[in-house]
């Protein structure tokens, strides 16, 4: 098969991958719109808590991320401790977003992290890649 056929075929395959991935993402991540509109709740160590519950009884921390942005929210280590995680420093924590984005962090990172009122997890010791918006779950790994 000549280049005249292969090149357009590869281009079409690339577009099809992009289109099908977009459809898949759209179909499997409907929770972002409901997340921003509805009452937010987050599952931490298998316990479902609303943002109001989380903020009503937790230590507030202010951090500055390495790219110079200020975040104010609930201290993640305080949140984890109150979620009855045994030996918090023995585990890693997977922070999962409504759009399926997830990042696994250490207990040391958690001690530098906050969960904001709009459901963003940010860390003063980690790059922007580790900033997770629309947090729906924190799994103990």
């Amino acid at each position, binding site marked *: 098969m000549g*280049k*005249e056929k292969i*090149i*357009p075929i*590869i*281009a079409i395959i*690339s*577009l099809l*991958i*992009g*289109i099908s*991935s*977009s459809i*898949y*993402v759209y179909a*499997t991540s409907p929770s972002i719109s409901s997340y921003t509109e509805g009452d937010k709740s987050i599952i931490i160590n298998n316990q479902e808590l609303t943002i109001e519950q989380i903020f009503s009884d937790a230590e507030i921390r202010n951090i500055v991320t*390495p*790219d*110079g942005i200020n975040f104010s929210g609930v201290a993640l280590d305080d949140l984890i401790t109150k979620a009855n995680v045994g030996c918090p420093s023995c585990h890693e924590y*997977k922070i999962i977003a409504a*759009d*399926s*984005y*997830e*990042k*696994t*962090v*250490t207990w*040391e*990172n958690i001690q530098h992290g906050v969960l904001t009122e709009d459901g963003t997890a940010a860390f003063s*010791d*980690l*790059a*922007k*890649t*580790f900033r997770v918006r629309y947090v729906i779950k924190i799994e103990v790994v």
Partner: protein
Amino acid sequence: MNKMKLIFGVILFGSLWGFSETIIGTYLHNTSLPAGSIMTGVFAVGLMTISRALYKQRGMQLGMGLVAGMLRLFNPCSTCFICSAIAIMAEGLIFEVAWYNLSLDLAELKKTTMMASMGVIASYGCFVGGYIVTQILTPLSQSAGFHIENLLVFMPQILAKGLPAALIGGIVVPVALLSKKIDIAGVKDKVYYPFTATVSATCWVIVILNAIFILKII
């Protein structure tokens, strides 16, 4: 083509690419536009296509990626400078691989469908490849480390985000290939060298001044 002329060309186009990544890219990221797709589809792939059409040399775009990546290191607006720089270099490498089997005079790319197809392939490949490289390298440089499952679960998002870049590339490459008609070898040395050197130096000076200005603010 004279080797010195080629080296000056690599520095010129690499500097323009690095300049666009650091200066224009920073401002685009603060808008609601798809900054990553525009940066890859218009600037990265556009500049690499123009250089390939003008100089008709393989390997030049990898060199451009190295120059642009080095310039990116001067931008203090990201946590992992080296990761962004390596991602740019990876884009140069991916472009080289995608265009490797084409003839030096790009005779295959006469029809608009062929040009647009190469644009789609190069832009999609560069965007997705660069994104994956960043998602691996940045965590590796951080205390949290890299977890493959974090990347795998996000792959559909990365593949979906590449679609605008592919579409932009499909438009930009046919336009960029119009530069095939320019005879760069015919440009007189006394015009070519001062021009390329001045433009390249200007890009570097602006990026370095911008870095100093931002560091003072921080």
